[in-house]
């Protein structure tokens, strides 16, 4: 079936003119119409725009143009501004917001000929690990509708896993690409801080946020990332460094590659989950890689560090939602303070308000040194631990998440338990490092992910390692029942 083909295979058929982008787009739009009601993964379907974009791609193909993404459909996380299309960020605050321009990521993929099918559901303002904080309701996991797909890129993950699109975009502030990719059995890549432009990507925590890809294989992710990445003068944190040809580098041999097993990630890990991770690492050693145990002593402080830094930055970033220039405004405000307080109180959901208040508290007079500066100091210690580890090893490995997907409703009333779900992914964000999650097996019918973390700008090495693993294993080819 068309939806089982890789991006490379689809591109070949489009190039051979055996298939048109309009046919391909109709195929995925039909799947969205049939399957999305059971998932709630896509919250805006842009069928007319998609068919028009597909027709433009077909015209370019007919004129002889060939490009790896020309005519390939995708779904964007609803955190990316899309000109003329609602960009809600999963919030009531932006339920009525029609973006007036395209995010750089959107513009680049559009220029490469990709066809946007719609916008994916997400945790409100990317704050959540289960996609339950969305104003548009929870997303269901294609592997089990009673389970969460992870978050915050939960809609993107469920959509790609259910084959509603060949790939989707996501963002990762504390694990929001890798964690949902792991929980839905797909591949997710979170690039180095500054690798992909954040212009037009609604800000959550500016020293941590980064955009990336969710796809069904490392090879597909590499193809998309190559186009997304690169310098953008419109983003002051964008790094001006050349983009390697990720797809061309996928077959670098693993012989001699040193992979460090993060001791702290195996402490307390359930034996069945630990076994799957160790089995995956055995595949790497059979391919010529060496594994050795490494310790990052400050890593267990990642969660407390993150839950100071991220809320502090969120409280500052989200101050722009004032009920004046865009977004939700309360009814009949009696004065300006009432307008601010009720527009924000009614427009934001419970978790977003909790994070804004946490951030306001840790930044407030008398607490700034004890919390914010302290967290920034511990952040440096964590980053130094990673740097020391990368003097000994090329990549670090461990589980992406402590457990497979949990039940919808199981953790939503206990924020601290929910936060602990990101315990293995947050470190890479604090240190600005790239990370990949690849499927590595199943526990009780639910997928589990192996996480690889690399030094800054080591995306090619990470994607290559994940690709070699996927050539030697079949976990990424499993399909959720009902979505074949």
């Amino acid at each position, binding site marked *: 079936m068309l939806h089982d083909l890789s991006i490379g295979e689809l591109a070949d058929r489009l190039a051979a003119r055996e298939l048109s982008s309009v046919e391909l787009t109709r195929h995925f739009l039909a799947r969205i119409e049939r399957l999305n009601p059971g998932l709630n993964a896509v919250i805006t379907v842009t069928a007319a725009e998609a068919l028009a974009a597909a027709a433009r791609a077909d015209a370019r193909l007919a004129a002889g143009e060939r490009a790896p993404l020309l005519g390939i459909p995708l779904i964007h996380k609803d955190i990316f501004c899309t000109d003329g299309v609602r960009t809600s960020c999963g919030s009531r605050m932006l339920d009525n917001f029609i973006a*007036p321009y395209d995010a750089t990521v959107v513009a680049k993929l559009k220029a490469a000929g990709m066809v946007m099918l719609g916008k994916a559901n997400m945790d409100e303002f990317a704050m959540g690990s289960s996609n339950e904080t969305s104003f548009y309701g929870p997303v269901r996991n294609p592997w089990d509708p009673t389970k969460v797909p992870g978050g915050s890129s939960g809609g993107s993950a469920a959509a790609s896993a259910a084959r509603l699109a060949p790939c989707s975009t996501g963002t990762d502030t504390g694990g929001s690409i890798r964690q949902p990719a792991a929980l839905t059995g797909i591949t997710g890549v979170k690039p180095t*801080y500054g690798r992909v432009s954040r212009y037009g990507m609604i800000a959550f925590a500016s020293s941590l946020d980064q955009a990336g890809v969710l796809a069904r294989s490392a090879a597909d992710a590499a193809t998309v990332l190559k186009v997304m990445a690169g310098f953008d003068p419109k983003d002051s944190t964008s790094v001006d460094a050349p983009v390697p040809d990720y797809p061309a580098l996928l077959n670098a041999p693993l012989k001699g590659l040193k992979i460090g097993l993060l001791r702290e990630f195996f402490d307390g890990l359930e034996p069945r989950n630990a076994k799957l991770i160790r089995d995956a690492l055995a595949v790497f050693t059979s391919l010529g890689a060496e594994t050795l145990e490494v310790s990052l002593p400050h890593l267990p402080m990642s969660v407390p560090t993150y839950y100071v830094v991220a809320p502090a930055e969120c409280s500052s970033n989200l101050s722009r939602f004032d009920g*004046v220039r*865009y977004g939700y405004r309360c009814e009949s405000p009696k004065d*300006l303070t009432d307008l601010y307080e009720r527009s*924000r109180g009614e427009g934001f959901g419970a978790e977003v308000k909790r994070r804004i208040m946490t951030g306001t508290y840790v930044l407030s007079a008398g607490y700034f040194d004890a919390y914010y500066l302290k967290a*920034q100091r511990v952040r440096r210690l964590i*980053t130094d631990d990673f740097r020391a580890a990368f003097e000994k090893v090329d990549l670090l490995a461990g589980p992406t998440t402590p457990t497979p997907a949990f039940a919808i409703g199981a953790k939503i009333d206990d924020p601290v338990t929910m936060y602990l779900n990101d315990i293995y992914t947050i470190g890479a964000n604090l240190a600005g490092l790239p990370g990949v999650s690849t499927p590595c097996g199943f526990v009780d019918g639910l997928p589990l992910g192996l996480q690889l973390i690399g030094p800054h700008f080591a995306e090619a090495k990470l994607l290559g390692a994940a690709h070699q693993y996927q050539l030697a294993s079949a976990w990424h080819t499993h399909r959720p029942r009902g979505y074949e």
Partner: protein
Amino acid sequence: MSLTRQDVEKIAHLARLSITDREMPVYVSSLSSIVEVVNELSRVDTANVEPMAHPLVGQRQRLRPDVVAESDHHEKYQRNAPQVQAGLYLVPRVIE
């Protein structure tokens, strides 16, 4: 350390968030548990450690020349505004 209702009311006002009476007890308890988690930071010895604000070493905030690079989009941007008149955003009267 746990936060009181008065603490949370003060934080909410600083953040310009109206919190309903029904929501308040949930925030008092959940913010208290979060503060308990972040208090673990105090166990780490950070003497002589410089605070880290940017994850990439040596990266600096880039500046661009101070020249006009954009055209005027105010009409398009103001289509998203709750209330606009003659190119101006309307808010409740501030000065009587």
